[in-house]
């Protein structure tokens, strides 16, 4: 009874306290930034991502912060639910008084945030969500995106894939918006480059619930010469293993989105496929001064190698800091104006936020997979600069037209 009574009291008092909390006045010498991502799911991406922005944050603040002010990031977990993300965004903006929002992994969460930013006139820098709609169909003044979109990455692959003589193509992609966008964009670009190709089969397994054996069989039944794959994570691992066992990859040219990223190829270990055309992040092979510096700092701080998410997190934080430096204020309209056309040097090369659609020109690494010391790596890769794989300005204007 006493336990119960105490519990009830504790619950009620803490409930009243949280509800009654008056928003704290922001301290004058810090700039608060709200960060929302899916930290309780898809941790294989979001944890390295968090490491990335935390590294950048530490570097920025160690160098004296921005215009004499330290940066403070309030990081929250949206559990992968758009409704939760919007509530948290509201809380960060109205209660914590953050200057801007950044983050997100899932496209639909990103889209919900985009709409929130537009409605409440808050700057939102999307880190990871790949959906094309984020900057085009649903794009708005207050949303910017760092990562190369689905369209850009598909276009990078299609440009190289077009050089392969294969004519009969099949696709396999998870059955949700990202998979659908990725297939549509790839088909569009490849068809434009190679009018003679035909697409003979499409497979749409449910996300993270692939029945790999059946899907491989269904693809094989269409007898394709080349296959475009969009599955990732656990689905990819099952797809690769079943396909190898069933001898499916022997005579098929495989093109695969994101597969070269350490997040997805490393779990495959010695079973990583060879000779696939992929986008990814060959951190072990990039020999530029900027990347070396980033790599050394990352490995020193975390005793681990960076994943794609780490670069995305690092770049997002750095882009925000750069913008704040140039804007010299946390007034949203001024920050948006500064963000439009902002250019800064990232570990992976210069990044430019386009004024026309608020998409950054951060690129991706495109190459072929190979096995080295029992591990999947990327070889013959090159850095595809994002600016070369975006539609023409006229087309973008049409896409963004309201």
């Amino acid at each position, binding site marked *: 009874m006493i336990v119960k009574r105490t519990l009830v009291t504790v619950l009620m008092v803490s409930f009243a306290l*949280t509800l009654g909390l008056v928003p704290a006045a922001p301290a004058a010498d810090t700039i608060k930034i709200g960060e929302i991502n899916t930290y309780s799911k898809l941790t294989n991406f979001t944890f390295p991502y968090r490491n990335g922005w935390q590294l950048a944050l530490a570097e920025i603040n160690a160098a004296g912060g921005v215009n004499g002010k330290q940066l403070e990031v309030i990081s929250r977990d949206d559990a992968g639910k758009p409704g939760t993300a919007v509530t948290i965004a509201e809380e960060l903006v109205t209660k914590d008084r953050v200057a801007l929002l950044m983050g997100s992994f899932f496209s639909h969460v990103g*889209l919900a945030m985009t709409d929130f930013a537009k409605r409440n006139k808050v700057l939102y820098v999307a880190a990871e969500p790949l959906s094309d709609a984020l900057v085009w169909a649903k794009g708005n003044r207050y949303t910017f995106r760092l990562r190369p979109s689905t369209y850009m990455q598909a276009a990078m692959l299609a440009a190289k894939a077009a050089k392969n003589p294969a004519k009969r193509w099949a696709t396999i992609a998870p059955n949700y*918006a990202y998979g659908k966008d990725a297939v549509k964009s790839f088909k569009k670009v490849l068809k434009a480059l190679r009018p003679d190709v035909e697409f003979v089969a499409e497979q749409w397994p449910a996300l993270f619930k692939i029945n790999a*054996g059946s899907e491989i069989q269904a693809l094989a039944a269409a007898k394709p010469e080349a296959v475009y794959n969009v599955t990732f994570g656990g689905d990819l*691992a099952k797809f690769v293993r079943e396909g190898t066992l069933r001898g499916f990859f022997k005579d098929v040219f495989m093109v695969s989105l994101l597969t070269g990223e350490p997040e997805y190829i*490393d779990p*495959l270990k010695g079973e990583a496929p060879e000779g696939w055309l992929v986008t990814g992040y060959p951190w072990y092979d990039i020999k530029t001064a900027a990347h070396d510096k980033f790599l050394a700092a990352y490995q020193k701080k975390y005793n681990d190698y960076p994943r794609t998410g780490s670069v995305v997190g690092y770049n997002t934080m750095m882009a925000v800091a750069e913008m704040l430096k140039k804007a010299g204020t946390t007034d949203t309209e001024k920050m948006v104006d500064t963000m439009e056309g902002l250019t800064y040097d990232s570990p992976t090369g210069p990044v430019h936020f386009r004024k026309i659609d608020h998409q950054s020109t951060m690129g991706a690494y495109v190459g072929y997979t190979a096995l080295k010391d029992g591990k999947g790596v990327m070889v013959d890769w090159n850095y595809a600069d994002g600016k070369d794989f975006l539609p023409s300005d006229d087309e973008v204007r049409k896409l963004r037209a309201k």
Partner: protein
Amino acid sequence: MGFYIVQLLTGLSDASALFLVACGLSLIFGVSRIVNLAHGSFYMVGAYIAYTLIDRLPQGPFSFWVGILLAATAVGLIGVIVEVLLLRRLYHTPELFILFATFGVVLIIQDLSRWLFGAEDLLGQQAPGFSGSIDIMGSYIPQYDIVLIIIAPAILAGLWLLLTKTRWGILVRAATEDREMSDALGVNQTRLFTSVFFLGSFLAGLGGAVQLPKGGADLLMDLNIIATAFVVVVVGGMGSIPGAFLAAVIIGELNAFGVLVFPESTLVLMFLVMAVVLIIRPYGLLGKKEAPEHGGTAGDESVLRPASGKLKIAGLALLVLVAVLPAFVGTFQLVLLIEIALFSLACMSLYFIMGPGGMVSFGHAAYFGGGAYIAALLVHYLQTPMELALFLAPLLTGFLALIIGWFCVRLTGVYLAMLTLAFAQICWSIVFQWGEFTGGDDGILSIWPSDWASEKIVFYYLTMILCLGGILVLRHFIFTPFGYTLRACRDSALRVDSIGINLQRHQWFAFAIAGAFAGLAGGLYVFSKGSIFPDEMAIPRSFDFLFMVLLGGVESLFGPIAGSAAFTWLHDTISRINLWQLVLGCIFIVLVVVFPMGIAGSIGSRLSRFFRPR
């Protein structure tokens, strides 16, 4: 020809993997009537432990199989720990509270696994000696698929022998058939339950471990498998092991051939099968009608009474508080209160069919999300004003509930709940797949309130008026003749039948009413968030509502409000910390153990003397 044989075998091997997870669940349910949500977590832990063991042990076929067996045993022991420390304390409470407690276990295991096994996906090891494939007329099938096809019937045979040829098996069957009678005859229930829980968890762990060569271990496995496992168990008939096998084969084969004809079908096929089977056979393929509990349900639920004078004053005080609160709190607290109010209404509607109606729904998100989508689509395509959308949303959702309810009220208990789940999943998959019309999982954006209500404070009052109004109307229904009849239907179907009341029709209308009010909550929700995504119709949302109601308690009319307030607030507060799922899981478990009647129920029973009408 070879192609079809291979596809058939592939389907069978998928079926084997399904059966291994489902049989343990079926066994546990049959004896203890526990809907064990943690079964998927045991499956996941089995995969992780087996992976770790096989990695550490010296390479070779011996260590592979020993690793799998050790992992399954370890998971069985974890199951025993959960049973002894937690579930045993809850057998006297309604079964749904145990479901809630097992959800706490899911959250705890989720975070503990991340902490123990790391965030990265693991690709399972190949089985030594079975890492190649077999050529069947030009098509290849992995050797391990054949191993799986043999393992599942072997387990089935083993379980059959255990259940029919041993004394323990006879006791288990007796308890499955009639728990109270076996108790009365002096069978040690505690030991029986613990041993059954061990075996069930062992099988879950085995399922997770055995699938390693086909997949691996990752942190999404638990929730990905649990719905599937339940579908298999229910389609087969709960408690029937051969039924589970049959259901697994049917679903496995339909999936294998379904992707050839209609590649998108994987989303929904399983739930379609379940809906069809349950409509034709209300107790699953091989299930039997549950034996009625001898004592009846009388006494399980306290009698609901109309509000006394003092309670009315308390209610009035609450209303006044709601009205003046905006003067004291910030904008964000308003947002949170709006959310609490919306969920309260949705929970009240769920409570309406669960408490007085006696029908548990696992698919209430279909109406909440349905209402939200109806409102959003009306605004998006027809530029309907908010007021009209808020009127049409509950109306059309009511129709949806009327259609779904017509099928569901023919069933009872868990079968009814699972059929609501099936329909909710079908609705979800339509919204998800029909991207051209509903936006798919990119959702519908920019659905904001009319200008006059766009101020947060105005929208707050609008929400409060509609939600509290809705709650009071639902409360009023409970004390109308309709409501009394509904409670009579719940308490004794036999007596209701004999005095000439049409039981199903009353339940059917209750279903529609609940659907309509959930639709109203959904309609308001979309205007408060500005966007809607299929998530709001998916299984997790349905279970959120269920947990809110249980948290508040099903014995008090105030329960849904208390539950949704506590749930929303807990989520918002706790999600700031790392490992918040672990903390939340612990809190849920403590709450269930300390407040077996829910928060409001426990407070209410202590204050009951004060509020009782004189």
